[in-house]
């Protein structure tokens, strides 16, 4: 017999868009766990801002019957106890059977257990599953006793729960599950009776496009041929703050294009949730695409309203721009004395002084130092108070408008780059230095006063700061050693090492053992680390490489056991002819061929393999002649050290282990 279909809809007031995905995923997984013992499964999960909907399939009307064994007294128990057990279980003593278990033999009763009805099971479990959804922030709402009130993201206003044609009866916070959903707030009816079969269609008739994929398609189709700035995050948001999305295109006065593009785009994207429109050449066009939560705008009122709001916003921005220009950035450096960076680390003025000094120390020229001096002054500008996300960029634009050289204004503009692993890098070496100095000063300062990130706690985003440093050092044009940046702080050094590992493993995708091997041979220069890793990765696939790694590990262990920690001079006279002398010969030959190319050098080192294998095969290091033994160990030590400068091969994980 095929099972029954199932539908659960949790109707709520508008759920924040970014929380919908994880919540739906959690609910779907939990409902799946409920359906599994009934032979069923979740077949589909959908959501709009006002509803989380879970579809199930193949649910058996009741759980399968099962047999249960109830254990009673042990076999050795007095007759009275056995009779008592039989009475309690409602059976004759003769009906008891003795069952052997790991703990011994026990009188037991076999009972048939009738499987629970699916509806009852679900009704009992669903309230807990629904109120158990983990939300980032929850509320309680109007209940007689708030201490008993469930917590949810927004008030639950209706529930649909159907198993086949039957309502699964339960209640949460006074709301009873039924077969009545609600349509779109404006386009739909407030009460819509549904069955599992017509649920989605009824919603559609009432102005709700249930599937996020369908809503997204509507938006994309609405944008059509209009060239909008690609923005996946915005598309996702708009898909999840609408139940029936439709696009409108609006325009604004070209005169506003004189404002910095970043400001215009931020107003459109972040404040108004509009797509910015581009010209063929990628420059900004005086137009936008907005997404409504309604079918259409026949009278153009929505378009008119949105254009009006945007105009007001742009006017504000223009006002800020004009006010800010009255005092050039250079005059604002002093104002930074009143802007606190961190209570114990002083004002942004103090930070600026440190940043400038650090830029100088790292070799920054006058332009780089000038950029560091002006970098934080935009924090005192009205534009940045309004558009905090544009700090740095606003300063850069202002510096350009105020006649600072390009090397200066670009460095100011780029000072927070790269903000993430995907973000653009500073465009110039001055920008790299300003960005590096700013982050390194923050890191040193915070570590100096014990503000070291632990676990998920990282209020000053130090991990991100360090990650940016690592990325600039590897991918940027500056060539700086780690030592210049960490100073002598060991904790900071360790912290950086973590970020370096993360970068090469998770961002660049190198296997962890290759990363360990290369870092094990030193990481004072991250560009060099990058080159060594690339070389190691390239030669690893060669047939000689992994066996050689195994041998190197063997050598390392042997030296450790013998307590050898320094080299010496190999006395060629003590080398035994045959494998030992051949290994020495190979060592001399390979050493002579090492070059500046890591790939070539690693290739050469890999050719040692036959000689090393033969040596271990034929030669006993532990020989009675102490001088010979010592000489052999020295040979191995020198071999190991000479050839471990690119990577510590003993860190390579091989299949032979």
């Amino acid at each position, binding site marked *: 017999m095929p099972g029954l279909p199932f539908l659960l809809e949790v109707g709520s007031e508008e759920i924040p868009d970014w929380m919908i995905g994880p919540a739906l995923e959690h609910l779907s997984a939990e409902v799946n766990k409920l359906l599994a013992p009934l032979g069923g499964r979740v077949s589909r999960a959908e959501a709009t801002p006002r509803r989380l909907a879970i579809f199930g399939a193949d649910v058996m009307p009741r759980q399968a019957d099962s047999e249960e064994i109830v254990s009673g007294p042990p076999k050795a128990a007095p007759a009275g106890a056995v009779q008592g057990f039989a009475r309690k279980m409602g059976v004759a003593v003769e009906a008891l059977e003795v069952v052997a278990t790991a703990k011994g033999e026990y009188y037991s009763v076999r009972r048939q257990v009738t499987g629970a009805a699916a509806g009852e099971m679900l009704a009992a479990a669903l309230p807990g599953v629904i109120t158990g959804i983990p939300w980032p922030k929850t509320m309680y709402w109007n209940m007689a006793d708030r201490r008993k009130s469930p917590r949810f993201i927004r008030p639950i206003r209706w529930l649909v729960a159907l198993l086949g044609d039957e309502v699964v009866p339960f209640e949460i916070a006074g709301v009873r599950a039924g077969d009545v959903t609600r349509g779109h707030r404006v386009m739909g009816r407030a009460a819509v009776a549904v069955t599992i079969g017509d649920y989605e269609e009824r919603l559609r008739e009432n102005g709700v496009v249930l599937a996020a994929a369908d809503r997204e398609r509507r938006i994309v189709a609405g944008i059509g041929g209009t060239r909008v700035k690609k923005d996946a995050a915005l598309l996702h948001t708009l898909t999840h703050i609408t139940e029936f999305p439709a696009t409108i295109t609006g325009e604004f006065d070209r005169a506003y294009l004189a404002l910095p593009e970043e400001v215009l785009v931020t107003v459109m994207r972040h404040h108004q949730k*509009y797509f910015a429109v581009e010209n063929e050449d990628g420059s900004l066009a005086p137009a936008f695409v907005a997404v409504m939560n309604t079918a259409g705008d026949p009278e153009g009122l929505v378009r008119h309203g949105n254009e009006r709001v945007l105009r007001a916003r742009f006017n504000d921005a223009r006002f800020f721009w004009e006010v800010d220009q009255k005092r050039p950035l250079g005059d604002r450096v002093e104002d930074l004395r009143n802007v606190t960076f961190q209570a114990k680390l002083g004002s942004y003025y103090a930070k600026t002084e440190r940043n400038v000094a650090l830029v100088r120390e790292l070799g920054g020229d006058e332009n780089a130092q000038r950029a560091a001096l002006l970098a934080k002054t935009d924090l005192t500008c009205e534009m940045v108070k309004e558009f905090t996300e544009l700090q740095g960029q606003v300063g850069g634009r202002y510096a350009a408008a105020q006649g600072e050289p390009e090397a200066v204004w670009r460095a100011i503009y780029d000072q927070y780059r790269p903000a993430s692993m995907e973000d653009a890098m500073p465009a110039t070496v001055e920008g790299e230095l300003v960005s590096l100095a700013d982050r390194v000063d923050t890191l040193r300062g915070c570590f100096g006063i014990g503000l070291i990130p632990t676990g998920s706690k990282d209020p000053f985003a130090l991990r991100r700061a360090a990650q940016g440093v690592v990325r600039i050092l590897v991918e940027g044009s500056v060539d700086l050693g780690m030592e210049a940046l960490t100073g002598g702080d060991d904790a900071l050094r360790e912290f950086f090492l973590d970020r370096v590992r993360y970068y090469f493993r998770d961002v660049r995708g190198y296997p962890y053992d290759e990363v360990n091997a290369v870092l094990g041979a030193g990481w004072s220069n991250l560009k060099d680390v990058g080159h060594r890793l690339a070389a190691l990765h390239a030669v690893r696939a060669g047939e000689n490489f992994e066996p050689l790694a195994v041998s190197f590990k063997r050598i390392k262990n042997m030296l450790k056991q013998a307590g050898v920690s320094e080299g010496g001079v190999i006395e060629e006279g003590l080398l035994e002819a045959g494998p030992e002398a051949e290994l020495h010969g190979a060592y001399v030959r390979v050493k002579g061929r090492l070059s500046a190319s890591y790939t070539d050098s690693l290739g050469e080192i890999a050719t040692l393999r036959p000689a090393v294998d033969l040596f271990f095969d034929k030669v006993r290091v532990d020989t009675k002649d102490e001088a010979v033994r010592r000489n052999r160990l020295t040979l191995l030590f020198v071999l190991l050290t000479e050839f471990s400068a690119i990577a510590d091969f003993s860190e390579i994980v091989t299949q032979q282990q």
Partner: protein
Amino acid sequence: MDTYQQTIFKLKSYWAERGCVIQEPYDVEVGAGTMCPETFLRVLDAKPYRVAYVQPSRRPADGRYGENPNRLYKHSQLQVILKPSPDDILEQYLASLEAIGIDLSKHDIKFEEDNWESPTLGAWGIGWQVMLDGLEITQFTYFQQCGGVDLELVPAEITYGLERLAAFLQNRESVYDIRWTPEFSYADVRLAEERQFSVYNFEMADIGTLWQLFELHEKECSRLLEAYKKYPDRQRFPLLPTYDQVLKCSNLFNLLDARGAISVTERVGVIGRVRKLAVGTAQAWLHQQTAANGEAA
């Protein structure tokens, strides 16, 4: 087309029909309708209450000398408190928009996440900003905590931005062009006030005097809160005047802030001082109310 005041009348009538006490604005300076005793103190206890009132709200730092078409030193909010919040509160709210002439079938309405938090009041809630054709017209909040106290009955707070709504309804580019009556524009009624207060707030307010006033009101508030603890007849203790002192401090803080007299470092500390007074008063008030209920029972 309705005038500014007609729109206000309609909203007041709408909420009066739904059982609200129509209050008049509170006569001590506040930064938002939430700070009035009719909201801040009323929400604390477990007695149902419904109230609506227009509250002129002063934000000294937002002043623009009357030159910015959308920013005001003093704007007006229509504040509605429904405690406890009815189940159909959002439907009631949407109907209030229809009541002032917004045909929702021709417009776009969205509820976008916007949780409210006031560190100075030790208060927070969960809610949305309501967007009408891309314009934020309302803050909607389910209060959860006020004065550091978990609320017994969750109130819904609806705060309409009246100038914005009116500019929308009258299709004006500048709030100053809003018709207050057929005869008088918003500028006729309020422009001089915007100009003069901007000059005072940004240029002429005497920082020393403001600090002195702040400290005087703070001291008076602390003295009263201390006195409450030992006062024999708590029911007649003047906690409402005590709360006025909190409001005075809060407004003086905003003035000092606009005047640029509070560094970022100091800011947190001063907010903390106001918060201490607000939380102290809220807790004393709740204590006084609960004691009164206890005696009655």
